[in-house]
């Protein structure tokens, strides 16, 4: 195999992982500042210019916290649960394109890690295994609140996965491909799928929030009922890794949503200036994450039975209907 190609893959993977981990640090700051604005506060602005060094100070604080393992916990599973939680979040974006191919050092470089022809199925597979870490964390802590939080998370994520997966089908059917590169290309030549697939867009938006357990669907960590949910017994860096997984998942679903419905790296003049692609994508992710934070600031948490009803009785049938109508329309138009 070509050694330069291997190096290219390694460097691109490192760039993606560094982007996600640094992105995590700054999304925490973004969330605190933006939440503060919405609530007419100022937020953290003392550490560094505009509070830009706040994530560093948080990290240092968490490193020096005691890491406590409960005496009757399942030690090994307790230890690997945070890792199992963060890995799907880090690998899910491997099939997503960041921009047009660019020329660098005389090589044609594709700005994505792998153009799998079943990219959407890969994403579904990774989403579906991301529930393990949370379930196992809840179980292995040997704490009833943690267990309840973990079970809630499992039930919620399984329920919303159906609607989420079906909302992927709409764009795939319209584009005629399961590859994310083809879906972005199809959006470049026609309209963005937020216009062609508005129902799928709305279903994706809600189902993805529920899938990553963000407010208003953050039942697994409802403080009033469950102390802290599945991570009640976690402290120090293990807790930080759970926290990291949650914020990376925010970035990941924003990136997936932007790619599927908002044209990905598509934007004006991206054909002439290829380096604009990643900037457009980043801007779309930034706005999407901002909307997620805005939702958190304004909507109260749903009751658990309402949450399940929304998933099974509204989003799931709507998603099925959308798939059916999309398929019929695509067959009739072609």
């Amino acid at each position, binding site marked *: 195999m070509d050694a330069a190609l291997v190096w290219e893959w390694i460097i691109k993977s490192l760039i993606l992982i560094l982007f996600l981990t640094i992105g995590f640090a700054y999304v925490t700051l973004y969330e605190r500042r933006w939440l503060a604005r919405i609530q007419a506060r100022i937020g953290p602005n003392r550490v560094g210019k505009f509070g830009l060094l706040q994530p560093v100070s948080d990290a240092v604080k968490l490193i020096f916290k005691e890491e406590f393992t409960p005496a009757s916990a399942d030690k090994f599973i307790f230890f690997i649960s945070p890792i199992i939680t963060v890995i799907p979040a880090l690998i899910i974006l491997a099939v997503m394109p960041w921009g047009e191919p660019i020329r660098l050092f005389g090589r044609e470089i594709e700005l994505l890690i792998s153009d799998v022809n079943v990219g959407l199925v890969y994403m579904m597979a990774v989403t*579906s*295994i991301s529930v393990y870490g949370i379930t196992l964390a809840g179980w292995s802590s040997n704490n009833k609140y943690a267990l309840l939080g973990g079970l809630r998370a499992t039930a919620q994520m399984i329920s919303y996965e159906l609607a989420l997966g079906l909302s992927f089908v709409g764009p795939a059917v319209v584009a005629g491909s399961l590859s994310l590169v083809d879906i972005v290309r199809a959006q470049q030549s026609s309209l963005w799928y937020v216009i062609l697939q508005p129902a799928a867009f709305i279903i994706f938006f809600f189902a993805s929030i529920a899938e990553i357990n963000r407010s208003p669907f953050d039942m697994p960590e409802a403080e009033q009922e469950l102390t802290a949910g599945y991570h009640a017994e976690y402290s120090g860096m293990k807790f930080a890794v759970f926290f990291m997984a949650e914020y990376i998942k925010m970035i990941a679903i924003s990136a997936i949503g932007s790619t599927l419905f908002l044209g990905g790296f598509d934007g004006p003049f991206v054909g002439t200036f290829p380096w604009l692609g990643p900037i457009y994508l980043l801007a779309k992710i930034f706005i999407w994450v901002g909307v997620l934070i805005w939702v958190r600031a304004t909507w109260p948490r749903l009751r658990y039975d309402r949450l399940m009803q929304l998933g099974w009785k509204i989003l799931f049938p709507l998603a099925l209907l959308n798939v059916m109508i999309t398929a019929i329309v695509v067959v009739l138009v072609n």
Partner: protein
Amino acid sequence: MSLIGILFYAFLAIIAVASALAMLIDRNAIHSALYLVLNFATVAVLYLALGAPFIAFTQISVYAGAIMVLFLFVIALLGAEKLSGSEPLKTHRPLAIVLALVFIVEIVLFTVFRNQDISPMVILTQDFASPKNIGLTMLTQYALPFEVVAFILLSAAVGAIMLTKAERSPAYKLSHGEK
């Protein structure tokens, strides 16, 4: 096959067999379930190596992502993860040994007496396992089995929903003239 290829498949085979054995032997039900997940993931990697990414990812999302998560959910919900140390089914062990011996004899007989002139394997095209080809095969060549499976799954889902419906109280039935 090259040496690296043989090593790769041997490595996968060892993990698959070891995780299957560990699933059977481990006395903790959650650990067993996790070994089974590892087994499914290894099989998915095998599919991936054989050039069928669609089947590989479907394997992960259906078996590892849906079925085993439900297993874990039920085990954790019932608190049934600790099995007792002793074996409750005393007579099953000798029976299992006999059946295993029969199986080994069968494999030996098969390898000895099988038809020696094996026709060369059909070289598969690159897109043999593409989602499009799988969909076409399922909805044309295997349309009837596909529909039968869909019907069975649907009736199972309806049955599960019927089980969760609360039975009406005797007072309600009396007042509405139901038997």
